[in-house]
C-alpha cells in the first residue's frame, strides 16, 4: 500500500466527492459545510442537523448521486467540543461508484439526530448501536433500544468519561 500507488485512485475519489458535494451544496446551501478534501476520507458535515434526513433522502434518490449503499455508521465522541456525532460512509454501489462521508454532530447531553433508518435499512441497527454506546437519541427511529449491552446497563460505554459500574445483577463487573 505504497504512497505512490495509493494517491492516484484516491485523488480520483476526492474529485468525485467534490462533484457530489457541489450537487448537494446547490440544493441545501449552507446546511452543509465545506468539503474536507483529505485524501483518506473526504467528508462534509451537516450543519443544520434537522435537515439530515432530507439530505440523506436526496443523496439516495437524486440521479446524479444515487448513494444506494451505506457502508458504515459510526458514533463518535468529541469531548473537547462537548459533542457527540455520527460518521456515515456512503457509496453508490454498482451504479456510479463514488463515495463520500457525512458527519452529523449533536449536543453531548440530550442530543438528538434525525434517524435515517428508513432511508437506508442498514442504519437501523447501526443507530441502535450508536445509541447504546454513546447515548444520543435518534428521532424517528422505529425501535430505539439498546442492542449490545443489556437493557438495564448503566452509562454509555464508549464515551471517553465512562466509568464502569461496580456490579450488575449482583455480579462484580470490574477486574
Amino acid at each position, binding site marked *: 500500500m505504497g504512497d505512490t500507488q495509493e494517491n492516484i485512485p484516491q485523488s480520483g475519489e476526492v474529485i468525485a466527492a467534490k462533484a457530489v458535494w457541489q450537487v448537494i451544496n446547490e440544493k441545501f446551501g449552507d446546511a452543509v459545510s465545506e468539503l474536507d478534501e483529505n485524501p483518506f476520507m473526504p467528508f462534509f458535515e451537516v450543519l443544520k442537523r434537522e435537515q439530515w434526513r432530507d439530505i440523506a433522502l436526496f443523496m439516495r434518490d437524486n440521479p446524479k448521486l444515487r448513494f444506494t449503499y451505506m457502508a458504515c455508521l459510526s458514533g463518535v465522541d468529541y469531548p473537547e467540543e462537548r459533542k457527540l456525532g455520527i460518521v456515515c460512509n456512503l457509496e453508490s454501489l454498482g451504479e456510479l461508484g463514488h463515495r463520500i462521508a457525512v458527519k452529523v454532530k449533536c449536543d453531548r447531553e440530550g442530543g438528538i439526530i434525525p434517524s435515517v433508518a428508513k432511508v437506508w435499512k442498514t442504519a437501523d441497527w447501526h443507530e441502535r448501536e450508536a445509541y447504546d454506546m454513546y447515548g444520543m437519541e435518534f428521532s424517528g427511529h422505529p425501535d430505539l433500544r439498546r442492542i449490545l*449491552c*443489556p437493557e438495564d446497563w448503566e452509562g454509555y*460505554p464508549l464515551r471517553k468519561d465512562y466509568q464502569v459500574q461496580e456490579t*450488575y*445483577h449482583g*455480579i*462484580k*463487573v*470490574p*477486574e
Partner: protein
Amino acid sequence: MGLLDAKISKHNVLVTSVDNVMNWARLSSLWPMGFGLACCAIEMMATNASNYDLERFGIFPRASPRQSDLMIVAGTVTMKMAERVIRLYEQMPEPRYVLSMGSCSNCGGPYWKHGYHVLKGVDRIIPVDVYVPGCPPRPESLIGGLMKVQELIRMEQIGISRAEALKKLEEKSIDPGQLIQAARKGAIAS
C-alpha cells in the same frame, strides 16, 4: 477398563465395588451439553469432528441441558449471558460437572482489564471442576481436560463429597513439569 480385553467366559463372577461399576459407567458416557459461546466453540466442534473424534471416548454432545452430565463453557461469558449460564447449569441433572475451556472463561482472558461487559471468570457464578488453559485450547488439550473430568469421576465414591474427590485427584496427580524436565535432561544426555 481392561474388562473387555480380558475375554471373560460365560460363567464367571466378577467381584467389584458398586462405586467402581457406577463410575466406570458414568465416565464412559460423558455427555456434554453442545453449548458454544465463542472462538473455543469452534475448537470444540473440531474436537467433535472427524480428526479428533471425541465419540471414541463416549463423549457425544447433547442439545439439551436436561440430558447432559457435563457443561463445557467454551468461550467468553458476558454479563448478558451470565444469567443464562446459571440457568442452564441449574437445568442440568446431578451429578453435573463443569469444564471451563479457554482463558476467557477461566479468568476473562484478554478482556481482563478493559472488558466492561465480560465476566472475569465463569467460576464467579458457577462452580468449575476442570480448567483448560489456552486461547483457544487445542483439541488435544480439550481432550486432556475431558480425561481429567473422567479421572475426577473415578475418584468419587458414594458418601464422599465433590470437594473430597477433587482433593483426592489433586493428591494423586503428577506434576507434568517434572516429567517434562526429566525427559529434556534425558534428551540432552543422549
